[in-house]
């Protein structure tokens, strides 16, 4: 039993109101209309049967209810109506409940049949409460049925308009930035005083020709040179010294690591 088939059948019977209990017309209580499609499951059928006892749901007789339900199912079977499993499961459970209720007290199991019966009653009350609430809800003044909104509202529209803000300073600053950013860039490499390797070679070799004595590297550097030129001269002169040594025109000596580097002409060389 699925309610899918029911979703709209209930409507068909509902007539003008949104909801009425199906097949529950007054005066039919003795011969219950046999139409299982009318119920939303066994609990719904039970609720309907319970209502027929015409007492408060808190005062229904569960035993009588069970009998009614089983009777109903029997008749449906006699008529060869196809019964959904839900209804049969409920019937079996109710039959079990009934037999436990009729058993002597001391043989009862846990949970007791009283508890089961009471809980069934509580469930029926809750379902009944929701059913009534649904009916009351549907009976309220509903938009489009009982109350109506304006047929042709003009509607509200908000147009956003932006007030742009800019001032003179921002303007000319902006222009200045464009100009500054796009001004053709001229890259100038500043002239720096250097001593090239060639001039160092010339200088060192000519100075070596003058004496046979050891001279420190520093002594080959131009005196009074400004510091940056001096650095460059030192580097170039050092390389020149190595070069002269490689050519066999000079010899180099150093007493210790990082010690003073000395240089002298190799005899017989450079005199010519």
């Amino acid at each position, binding site marked *: *039993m699925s309610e*899918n088939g029911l979703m709209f059948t209930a409507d068909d019977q*509902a007539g003008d109101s*949104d909801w009425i209990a199906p097949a529950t017309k007054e005066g039919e209580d003795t011969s219950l209309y046999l139409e299982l499609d009318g119920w*939303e*499951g066994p609990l719904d059928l039970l609720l309907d049967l319970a209502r027929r006892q015409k007492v408060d749901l808190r005062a229904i007789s569960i035993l009588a209810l069970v009998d009614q339900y089983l009777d109903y199912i029997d008749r449906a079977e006699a008529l060869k109506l196809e019964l959904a499993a839900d209804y049969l499961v409920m019937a079996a*459970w109710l039959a079990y409940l009934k037999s436990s209720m009729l058993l002597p007290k001391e043989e009862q199991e846990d949970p007791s049949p009283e508890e089961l019966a009471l*809980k069934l009653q509580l469930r029926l009350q809750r379902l009944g*409460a929701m059913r009534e609430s649904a009916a009351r809800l549907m009976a309220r003044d509903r938009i489009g*049925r009982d109350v109506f909104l304006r047929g042709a509202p003009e509607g509200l529209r908000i147009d956003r308009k932006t007030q742009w803000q800019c001032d003179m300073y921002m303007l000319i600053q902006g222009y200045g930035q464009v100009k500054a950013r796009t001004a053709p860039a001229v890259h100038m490499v500043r002239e720096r005083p250097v001593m090239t390797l060639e001039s160092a070679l010339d200088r060192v070799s000519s100075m070596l020709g003058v004496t046979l004595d050891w001279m420190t590297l520093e002594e080959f550097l131009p005196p009074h040179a400004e510091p940056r030129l001096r650095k460059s001269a030192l580097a170039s002169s050092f390389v020149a010294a190595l070069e002269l040594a490689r050519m066999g025109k000079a010899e180099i000596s150093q007493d210790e690591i990082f010690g003073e580097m000395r240089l002298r002409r190799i005899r017989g060389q450079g005199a010519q």
Partner: protein
Amino acid sequence: MSGTKPDDLQRAVEATLFAAEEPMTLEALAGHLGDADLPAVREAVRQLADHYEGRGIELVERSRKWHFQTSPDLAHLLRREREQVRRLSRAATEVLAIVAYHEPVSRAEIESIRGVQTAKGTVDVLMEAGWIKIAGRREVPGRPVIYATTAEFLQHFGLQTRKDLPGLDELRAAGLLDPVDEAYDALIETDEPQGVADAPETEADMPRTDQSAIEDDGKEPGE
């Protein structure tokens, strides 16, 4: 009441609510009226609602939003030939009531109250109508989706807040919104203070249509 000329703010509120296509909160109204003073807007709305009382149209509040609508007692004049309101199936009606009175509520909880499996289509119909929405997940194993009603639901059924649900207080007082087991325990405790020993294991008691998990995918031929 009527009789006095409306002031400028009242006129502006009246015109705005009249022209609006959707109900408006006081805040939205104040914003629309150029950041008007909220208490003043509230007062203007209240006076307008007073003014319209007893007329053919009325100014009502639903879920904190205000709108004009025709008076309910004139429904017979205005019902159109074509029915504007979707006719709900009985299943959908019940599910809606259960969501409204028990919210937030999971599908399993709805099914346990109804004692029958709920077709997915039933919930979908209510979602499509804009009356219920998914309100999150219950932090229990399986993290089932839970449902709650919407502002449109309140609007449609003319409820200012959920507290206005018909009979809500009575149902609550009678414990009819509590689960069966809780109600049973409460009953036992008051009736016979000692009898809780045979307390309830959950749902050992009735042939619930608990197969929802199985049937969920299986059944549900579209309608």
